[in-house]
Structures are given as C-alpha cells and as structure tokens.
C-alpha cells in the first residue's frame, strides 16, 4: 500500500528532515510512527500526501509513484488518502455535516449518497445527533472525531493521522485509537504519527521509529513490535 525507497528530504533551508528512509506498509495494516519532535514524522506524512516531494528516493502510495505524479493529478491522489490532524483543520463557518461532506462535495458525489455516507461516518465516530451543530460548539475530542469522520467519509484505502491525540486526555486518546483500529478491521491501511508511547505500547501494533530523520526501528515488516 505504501512504499518508501531510500527517501531523503532536504528543505530549502538546508535542513535534512529525512535521510534514506525505506519501509513498506502492507494493505490493511495498522502501524505507529514515533520519534522525538523534529525527527521527521510530519515530513514523512506530508510526503505521503504529496504535500512535499522527496529530494531523493521514491514514495509509492497505492501503486502510484508520487514523484512522477503530474501536478494536475495530485488532488485525485489526495482523495484516496484520508488524513487527520492534531489541529483538526475544520471549517468553523459551516456545520458538522458540511465539514464531513466536504470531500464528497469535491468528488461530485450525489446529494443522496452524500447524506447517506456522511451520516454513516458520523455514526461510526458517535456524533450522529450533532450533524447540524457548528464544530465550535463541540469539545476537543468531538472535534477530533469530526476530523476522523471527514477523513473516512470517502472510504479511503489509506488513513494517516498526525498526532491525533495530541491535545486529548488519556481516556479520550484511547477512544480515538480504538476508532482507528476499527477502521483497520474493515480493511483500511492506517498510519498514525504520535509521541504517546504508553498508548502505542498498549495498542500492540507495529512501530516505525524515526530519529534525526533516519528510521531506526520497524522498517522491516517482521522486525517491528509484536504483531497482533
């Protein structure tokens, strides 16, 4: 599903965020990406979204080589990847429903189908009764779940999350993580960047560890943490 082949990323400031990173994620696999802040976690996720282009090496997601992807096709690639951010990236000038419906609206899904899918996604994250509210009226944990509903509403094959539990207390964090593993159970490939080590250890999934832009553990499918 995802393949990084000796990927390096050097920013124009001269900072090398990633150097020679290689790993693969199997289809339907769930893995964590950990490392100290500044280790290159966000850069790695941005490369998967084609928000950045690698300086060297190849990033292949769902069969397409992102370095060779035409600029005009980038949006279509992003439609296949669901993404969740620590700061939610919600739009506060519209309702919960409209926030979640945004990817479908962009993809041109019919209104009937949109309504059905948005409600299904909101149901999955437990927010079905709150679709008419404005996200600003909801708590941090609920806002994060709106973000997750938006990420999965388009039924993406790959779901990536950047510190999805960053601002949440342990209980809410565990809930969010359980949500992610539910998606894995229905066949979605999930990659979560986090520095919540305790939580990662409880989940008992494969761990990819970055240190100063290099992957120091978990790059081989079998050498990671014990597999569920």
């Amino acid at each position, binding site marked *: *599903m995802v393949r990084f082949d000796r990927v390096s990323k050097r920013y124009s400031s001269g900072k090398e965020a990633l150097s020679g990173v290689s790993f693969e994620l199997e*289809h339907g696999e769930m893995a964590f990406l950990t490392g100290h802040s500044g280790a290159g976690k966000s850069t790695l996720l941005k490369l998967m*979204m084609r928000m950045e282009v690698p300086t060297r090496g190849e990033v292949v997601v769902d069969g397409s080589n992102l370095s060779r992807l035409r600029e005009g096709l980038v949006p*279509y690639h992003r439609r296949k990847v669901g993404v969740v951010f620590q700061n939610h990236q919600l739009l506060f000038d519209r309702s919960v429903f409209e926030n979640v419906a945004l990817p479908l609206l962009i993809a041109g899904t019919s209104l009937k189908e949109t309504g059905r899918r948005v409600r299904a996604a909101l149901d999955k994250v437990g927010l079905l009764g709150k679709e008419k509210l404005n996200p600003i009226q909801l708590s941090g944990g609920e806002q994060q779940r709106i973000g997750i509903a938006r990420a999965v509403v388009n039924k993406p094959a790959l779901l990536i999350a950047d510190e999805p539990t960053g601002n949440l207390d342990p209980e809410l964090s565990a809930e969010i993580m359980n949500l992610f593993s539910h998606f894995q159970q229905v066949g979605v490939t999930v990659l979560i960047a986090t520095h919540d080590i305790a939580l990662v250890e409880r989940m008992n999934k494969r761990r990819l560890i970055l240190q100063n832009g290099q992957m120091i553990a978990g790059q081989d499918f079998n050498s990671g943490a014990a597999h569920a």
Partner: protein
Amino acid sequence: MPEKTTTQHGASAATLGAGEKFSAYFRNHQMVAVESLAKLLSTPASSLLTWLVIAIALTLPGALYMAVNNLQQLSGHFEASGQMTVFLATDIRETDTNALRLKLGSLDQVNKVVYVSPEQALEEFKEYGGISEALSFLDENPLPAVLLVEPPLGIDKDELNVLVAQIKSFKHVDSVQVDMAWVERLLALLALAQRLVAVVGVLLALAIMLVVGNTIRLSIAARTEEIRVIKLVGGTNAYVRRPFLYTGFWYGAIGGILAWLMLGLCWILLQGPVADIAALYGADFYLQPLPFTPTCWLISSAALLGLLGSWWSVQRHLVAIEP
C-alpha cells in the same frame, strides 16, 4: 505488492461514470453560481459598494456613447441632403433673378430651386426666438435674396464641388454656402468623440478589472484556511477557483445591469429638456435610449470584465496557497 492490493478496496469512492461525472460537474457549477451570488447578497452593503463603483465606471462611457449615437442620428438627417444656399448680389434686378432661377433649375445636378426673397427671409428670421427685437432697430432689410438649391439625394462630394464651382461662376451670384460643411465638421467631431468613448471605455474597463481583482484578493485572503483544507482533501485548482470566478462574474454582471439602469435614468432626466431644445429649433428629434444591442454588449462585457478581473487575481493569489 501495492499494485495488487489497490483493486481490492477504496475504489468505490473515486470511480464515477462519465455521465455521472458530467452531471456532478454541472451540478457543482450550478450550486457554486447560486451560492456565490447568495454570498454577495448576504453582505449587501459591501457588495453594493463594489457594484456601484462598477456601474459608475460603466455609465460614463455608456452616456458618452449614447450622446454620440444621438448626434450621429441627428447629423444623418442633413448628411443625405447636401442642400446649398446661393446668396445673390444685393443689387440684382428681378428679371435677372428669374433668369438665374431658371438657369439653375435646368442644370442636371439640380433637383429643385426655391426662391427666398429678402422680405421672406426677414419674416423667417423673426420667427427664431430673441432676434426679432434686434431686427426692429434696423432701418432697412440687411438680408440678401437667396436661392435654395437642392441637388439629387446621394450626390457625391466631387460632383457637389463641381456644381458649387459652376454656380459660383454665374453672374449675380455673390456666394454659395454648402450646408454640408457644418455636417462634415460635426461628423469629424463625432469621430473624435467616438475615439474618446473608446479611450475612456478601455481605461474604465481596466479600472473595473482592478476593482474586481482587488475585491477578490481580499476574499481569497479571508478564506485562506478554507482553501487549504479543500486542497488537502483533494480539491482541484479548478474547484477552488470556481467560487471566486463566479463571484467576479456576478460583480461584473450586476454592475452592468446597474449601469444600464443609471443610463436609463439619465435618459429619463434628459429626454424632456432635449425635446424642448429640439422644439425651439423646429427639429423633429427626440433623445434615443441606449439601443438593445449595445445594452447587451454593456452587460455582457461587464460580466466578462468581472470574470477577467477575478481570474487575474485568482491566478496571482490562489496558486500560492498550498496545504
């Protein structure tokens, strides 16, 4: 093997049939068109300000155009005639006058000759407002006898000049004045005015593009976050651009309609006074409103200018916003 796994999952979201894609595209256009207009109407004060700026910028060349158009029609009445006035020497005797009249009437290029005696000329002159009192102070009639010579309709300029030279050479003819002269001067002035309309029009068209472009720039800045999120979840540049282009279109189109209403108002206000002036000169003339075709041009070019202005702004500012 990532290539193998792709077909198993997730394809349902991205795959739409060609027909479905087209109808989705069309639906999106329709929705964005309506939404962007609704958005403009939801902030009536600031939208109206932009609309008025555009309308005023269009009314100026529009009014000039209307004026030139009307004057052209006025000159058209005279242009066709080419009538000339032959002033006779003051000491001419009546028999000579009659002979000259017959001689002129027999010329190939003359349709009609009308004799106006000095007395008749004086009477006619008195009918014009304001002059009769001044005339009553004169001891004797200062006006010469006149022959009004009418060449056939559509006579060309060279033939007319030959005719004038011929008449001038006749005995007892003091001078010949071709009424074409002032028509020609008027036409030259009108050509200048037309050029002026074009220059003013181009300048104000640029101004409209800048006004719309700047307004769009501000609304792009206000919606940076939204644009970033849309691009993040797979919105194409065209998708992001669309609402701004429609907004520009509505700015232009409604500004154009307002300009048309303003021109209509000018017409209503000026129609009465113009008719009064025309009546004073005994002319059968009334002020024409902006005709249908130029009205269509006015509104559609305003819409186009709004679209171009927003396009220019979007190209400059939207591309820079990346997630």
